[in-house]
């Protein structure tokens, strides 16, 4: 870009220097500052805390720095890794709901009469609060009065009623089913949008080449939907590992568990954030804030790492439009 214009007769007209653009800068810096002060700063604070022996969340005692000891202890804490494992187990629900969403939106993509109404109704669970959702499903999975056991017996099950929330083996299944109920609506809406953006001529061409319907689905539909699948997968993994509310409310205790149970059925609902919450509130015999902060950072990097891994791996299967 020229700095000035030179007219035919030799006069130089200096171009007005474009200013800093203060107005735009100020409009954008407000959210920026707020984000620094209320999101990044607390994160930095938690990093500092993770190297100290700070007590509970409201402790006013002075802290002592103790280096990486918290991290080492968390690393050795088998129960912490148990909660991380449960976090991954919990993401199964997100995978399930992703598959359901793909299947349902594929059926809807035929544009059957009322497809709009169907997807609108499928979306409803997504906007319901996790408090209400947990309470409803808790009732539904009730051993004696729950509709789930009632329906199972309708289908010919004659054994004693299943204690869904009363045994380790089925406890997490409840939450996987809840997620498969509440999350597909979002995926369906996203897939519906992706379906409408698929170029119809691709199918015409495939038809002329004699590709079967299944072949068309595998070679055209799935690759065309892959950016959406990638996005939903990413979101699913991240939200699956950070589940808290559903589990916390399901137990019916105020603010989640008040202590740690390592052998009851609830031990299968100990997702990482529950464990961190308990540690912050003092229900854990080990450590306090420092310990909780170290756990948070472990979890942070696990979530981040999984997301990065997914991103790396995505190059293999996500169709990139820019190529």
């Amino acid at each position, binding site marked *: 870009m020229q700095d000035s214009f030179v007219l035919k007769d030799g006069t130089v007209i200096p171009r007005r220097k474009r200013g800093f653009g203060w*107005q*735009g*800068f100020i*409009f*954008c810096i*407000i*959210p*920026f500052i*707020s*984000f620094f002060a209320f*999101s*990044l700063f*607390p*994160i930095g*604070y*938690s990093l500092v*805390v993770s190297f100290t022996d700070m007590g509970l969340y409201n402790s006013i005692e002075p802290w002592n720095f103790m280096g990486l000891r918290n991290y080492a202890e968390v690393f050795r804490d088998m129960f912490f890794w148990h909660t991380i494992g449960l976090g991954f187990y919990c993401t199964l629900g997100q995978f399930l709901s992703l598959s359901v969403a793909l299947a*349902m939106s594929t*059926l809807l*993509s*035929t*544009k*059957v009469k009322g497809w709009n109404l*169907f997807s609108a*109704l499928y979306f*409803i*669970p997504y*906007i*319901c*609060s*996790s408090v209400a*959702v947990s*309470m*409803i499903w808790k009732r*539904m999975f009730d051993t004696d*009065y729950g*509709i789930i056991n*009632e329906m199972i017996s309708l289908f010919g099950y004659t054994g004693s009623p299943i204690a869904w929330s009363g045994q380790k083996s089925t406890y997490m299944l409840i939450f996987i089913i809840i997620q498969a*109920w509440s999350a597909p609506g979002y995926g369906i*809406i*996203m897939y519906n949008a*992706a379906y409408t953006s698929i170029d*119809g001529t691709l199918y015409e061409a495939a038809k002329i080449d004699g590709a079967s319907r299944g072949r068309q689905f595998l070679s055209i539909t799935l690759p065309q939907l892959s950016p959406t699948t*990638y*996005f939903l997968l990413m979101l699913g993994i*991240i939200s699956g590992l*950070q589940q*808290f*509310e559903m589990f*916390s409310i399901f137990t*019916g205790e*105020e*603010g989640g568990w008040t202590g740690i149970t390592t052998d009851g059925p609830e031990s299968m609902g100990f997702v*990482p*954030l529950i464990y961190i919450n308990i540690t912050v509130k003092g229900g854990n015999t080990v450590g306090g804030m420092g310990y909780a*902060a170290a756990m*948070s950072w472990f*979890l*942070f990097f696990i*979530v981040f790492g999984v997301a990065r891994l997914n991103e790396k791996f995505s190059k293999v299967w996500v169709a990139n439009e820019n190529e």
Partner: protein
Amino acid sequence: MSKNNQIKQNPLVNIGLYSALIFFLLFTMLPFYVVIATAITAASETGIAAGFIALPSEIDLRGFTEIFTFQNNLLEEFMIFENVSKLLSGFYNMFWQVVPKSIISLFISGLAGYSYCKLKFKLKKPMFDFMLATMMIPMGTMTFVSFSFFVKLGWYKTVLPLIIPSLFGGSGTIFFLRQFFEGVPTEILEAARVDGLGEIGIYFKIAMPLAMPAFISQFILGFIGGYNSYTGPMLYLEGMDALYPLQLVLTKSLVASYSTKTNPQFQASYVAIALLPILIIYLFGQKFFISGITSGAVKG
């Protein structure tokens, strides 16, 4: 759209298609049916019969009248209004904690989104890139350690940590609104600038009205988020009964240690009433919902 025309013509395939769709619809609607069925079944009936009661012997609506009169009998001195049910005070608290905040935040986000899209200023690119990068941070993992930070600030047992951090706009909203402003022709804005309107004037008089659908959809999403929020109030408002928003009232009221009414009918009525406003908003604002969700996420 033409690709599946053959499918439609085959009645057998059509039946299969519909039965799959309806089967999943029944699964989706099942919990709502359970809530309604339980809410209209008299509490005395639930315990006696073995199993789930699909249809009560007679419709009993006492649960709904009970929740509107139910007061927290333990901590009456904390009540804002005398003789107001916990449910109504929950709605009231939710409303003042969520609505003004959402509106202010939306104005600020919109202004930032507008600037990122239509104004030129230095550091624009790095600031925008940074904002995008921050959206990838798994903030949920830091909920409980941030909690101790706000306690240190002295904001424990106040609504400040629920309002202030989200008052000045959010990255997601800014990003979404910026995308919407892309569709506003720059010529209109230039014309207004030539006519001597300042940037704020242009934003309020021209850009914002043009982007109204985007603002409405973001407001609805923000409102739903606030309406459903539980973890924040649960952490920060511990023990502050008078400030409990709806979801917290709902949780606490159904916990045995807090209320004496824990029968299924009472609980189901409570859940039904708490879900109703969201369902009504969804019914009327469905279009905004879907546009807000699908255009908020970019491909790839």
